[in-house]
């Protein structure tokens, strides 16, 4: 624990994405369980009919239609003007929201670094598939400088943005999500990466996201000292966000009780998400990002 309190964590100096991970991520694809309408032409099938090579349907010609889409073969046979309709291919909105509160600074590697890695990895998958990718740190402010990116070539911009992020933005989860929802109207996939350590609760924040009809994934990141605390003695615990104090005398009984509380907290969150169609996943910072993406998120259906 003291490693976290004093000194800069080793993980901050490490690159977010390694070349090995990048090559691994290129083969993956973000999957949405819903089909959304994109704004620009992308590589995804849209609900709308449009210009692609894939035939969709015919309809009667009405004045003003583009003459290029008239099926002249039909006209020759039936002497009626029909218009060929093709499937439209669209892009996908992908949002990754990273919790930037001070509590994310803990752990080895820190939860924040872990979250950035994860956000970068998922964002890169989106960039590779020409999706609309926005990786953003949760913030209560009405404006955001997070870039909206498309295409693999913009990877460096995403990484530049992520590298510039700092913790210490201690707004509540609800305020930050509300602000995000107001600023972004696009539908698509949203991955919320947070430690859920918010005393005001995470429930209302998740409700905002559900109301936006987004495909929401919640990745709950916890550091190992939080999962299995290795502390002893009579301690005065200081909350790094609000300076709250909890005085404890560590005993085996207390540790056991803490583990029970944590397990119940995780279980509550899982149940809350399950009821609202949110995919919940708890992970420890000890678990490598590549394994998380290539294995666990694949199982959950976020990537394929």
């Amino acid at each position: 624990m003291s490693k976290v309190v004093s000194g800069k964590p080793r993980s901050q100096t490490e690159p977010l994405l390694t070349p090995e991970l990048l090559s691994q991520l290129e083969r993956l694809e973000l999957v949405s369980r819903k089909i959304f309408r994109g704004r620009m032409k992308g590589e995804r099938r849209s609900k709308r009919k449009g210009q692609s090579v894939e035939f969709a349907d015919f309809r009667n010609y009405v004045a003003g239609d583009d003459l290029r889409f008239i099926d002249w073969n039909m006209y020759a046979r039936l002497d009626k003007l029909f218009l060929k309709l093709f499937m439209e291919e669209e892009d996908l909105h992908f949002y990754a929201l990273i919790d930037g509160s001070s509590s994310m600074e803990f752990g080895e590697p820190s939860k924040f670094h872990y979250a950035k890695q994860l956000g970068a990895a998922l964002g890169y998958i989106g960039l590779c598939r020409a999706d609309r990718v926005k990786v953003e740190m949760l913030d209560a402010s009405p404006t955001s400088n997070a870039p909206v990116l498309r295409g693999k070539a913009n990877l460096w911009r995403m990484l530049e943005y992520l590298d510039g992020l700092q913790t210490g933005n201690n707004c509540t989860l609800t305020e930050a999500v509300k602000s995000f929802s107001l600023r972004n109207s696009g539908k698509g996939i949203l991955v919320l990466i947070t430690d859920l350590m918010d005393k005001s609760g995470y429930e209302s924040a998740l409700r905002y996201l559900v109301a936006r009809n987004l495909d929401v994934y919640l990745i709950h990141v916890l550091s190992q000292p939080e999962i299995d605390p290795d502390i002893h003695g009579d301690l005065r615990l200081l909350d790094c966000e609000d300076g709250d104090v909890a005085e404890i005398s560590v005993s085996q009984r207390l540790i056991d009780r803490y583990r029970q509380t944590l397990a119940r907290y995780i279980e509550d969150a899982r149940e809350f998400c399950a009821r609202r169609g949110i995919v919940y996943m708890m992970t420890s910072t000890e678990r490598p990002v590549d394994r998380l993406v290539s294995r666990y998120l694949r199982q959950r259906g976020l990537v394929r």
Partner: protein
Amino acid sequence: MLGPLGWVLLGLVPPMILLLYFLKLRRNPLEVPSTYLWTKTIEDLHVNSIWQRLRNSLLLLLQIFLALLLILACLGPGCQGQKLAGDRFIHLIDQSASMAATDLPGGQTRLDFAKQEAAKLIDSMDSGDTAMIISFSDRANVQQSYTRNRSLLKRKLAEIQQTQRSSDIGEALVAASGLANPGRTSDRESERDVQVADALAAKLIVFSDGAVKDVPNFSLGNLVPEYRPVGALDVPNNVGITAFAISEDLDSVGLQAFAQLQNSDDEAHSVDVELYVDDEIHDLQSGFEVPAGDTRGISFDLGGLLEDLESPLPVRLEIKDPDVYLLDNVAYGTIQPPRQARLLVVTRNNPYLQYVFETDRLAKLSRVEFKEPGFLKTKEYRDNAMLGVYDCVIFDQCVPEAMPECNTVFIGCVPPTDQWQVSEPAFPTLVVDTDQSHPLMYNVQMGNVLIVESMRLTGPPAMVSLMESTAGTIMGVGPRGGYEDLVIGFPIVEYSDAGEETHNSDWPNHLSFPLFVQNIVVSLGGGARFDANQGTRPGELVNIRTRVPTSSVNVRAPEGDEVSLDSRGDRTFVYGNADSTGIYSVLNEESPDDKQLFPVNLLDARESNLAVRDKLEVGFEEITGTVDFIPETRQFWPWLVLFALFVLILEWFIYNRRVFI
């Protein structure tokens, strides 16, 4: 000690600990991501009562316990005890025979009780005190020199064994006073006299029944004596044998056994006394009355046991009535068969000597060869003389070339050694004095004996003068190695060269002459019609002399242990293991017929008198039976502090190992 304020402060310590515990002054700050889960956890625990927290905090309980222990130690708990006054102690434990008396309650022996009491005193010593243990009987034995190690002292105390010896405290006192009264370099009068060491005063505690010899010539100096009498308060019941002897009766017809019985009780006792010969009952007297505090003699007729007696017989006298002291209920004796002395008389036909040796009595006691002086030149004589065939050789006016390996008697001449010198014969000779205490002169009255002329003798330095005339010593006996030479400075019958007899003395006409010859046979020749071996007392050295030369003998103790002894030359052996009473046998493997028995008896009237003396006399002081104790509070606080230290270590262990908080 603490004043009221101190007590109040002390009493405040446990509540202060509790207070401090709740104030949690010693909590270490620790930054965590969120206290959210911890607060929830604590809230769960807070639901339980505060006492549950206390119950689970073993450390707090231990701390309060530690504080209580220390407070208790400060209170100085203790119990009233006794402490020996002084810091150096010498315990003198009597281990003599009388300490085996079982007159104490429960049949405990006096020695056991003394050891028990001494152990109590050792227990009550302070940790810095030193003590020393000396056991004594007729000799002293330093069991343990000064030490502070109480367990060692008690172990050595337990090792003290009962002996069957008499008691003499003198040697023990000398050993005890070694450090208390250190010696001086020279005489006290000199100015340059220096005391070699600092005198260390010590308390001398004597555990004894008081049956010890008084020690008149001993100065206690820096020793502070205390006497702890050991034994029953009322006089114990004991009738014991204090003397036992076997001798010929007056008319030399048979043997008699005499014994003296002592009753140390304050009421009369009648006892049954049995006499065993060769382990078979020979005689008994039942209901023999011994008055209170008095002695009575008792005799048994042993009859004609001496007739055709070939090997020695053991004799045992027993008092059959049991009492508290059994050692003096048995006395041992032996009857040795008659022994004939082998004598050689070298004389030119001295008729008086021949007449004397022909008497019945001397014929039984001796076997005599008469030879002319020419025999001295023969090889037979030389061989016999060198081999010690003779017990005694009588040279009547003749001198051998070399002294034979036996006792000798020279009549009217001197041995051919430088040590013996004679003057010219002097006339007349008036006998002035005879040494009647010497065995050779028993019953020899020289008052009316006439001696014409005699030579004055000068002998070796250790010569004993037996007869003196106006001119000086005319008869003397002197040692020569292991032998004795008797020289008589006057001839009895002189022979001229023509063979005429001239009488120089009328001694052969007097009764004293055959008695004198008999003394020679018995004393120098070792002849005995009856040999009553009076034996020795336990612990004394026993001198054994075999009849024939031998290199080693075995001595078998009454318990059956056998010890092989090597000769010291001249057929004598010394046995030093006669520690218990009974009959010891001497076995000679080279000549199995030469079996000897010797008895070992305590026969000590002082040991048999079991009345406990209430004082001892040492020098001019009387030691009475008191021991100074000073009341003492036995403190327990060091133990409490020790225990508190243990609790502290336990607490430290728990704190570090987190076994359970």
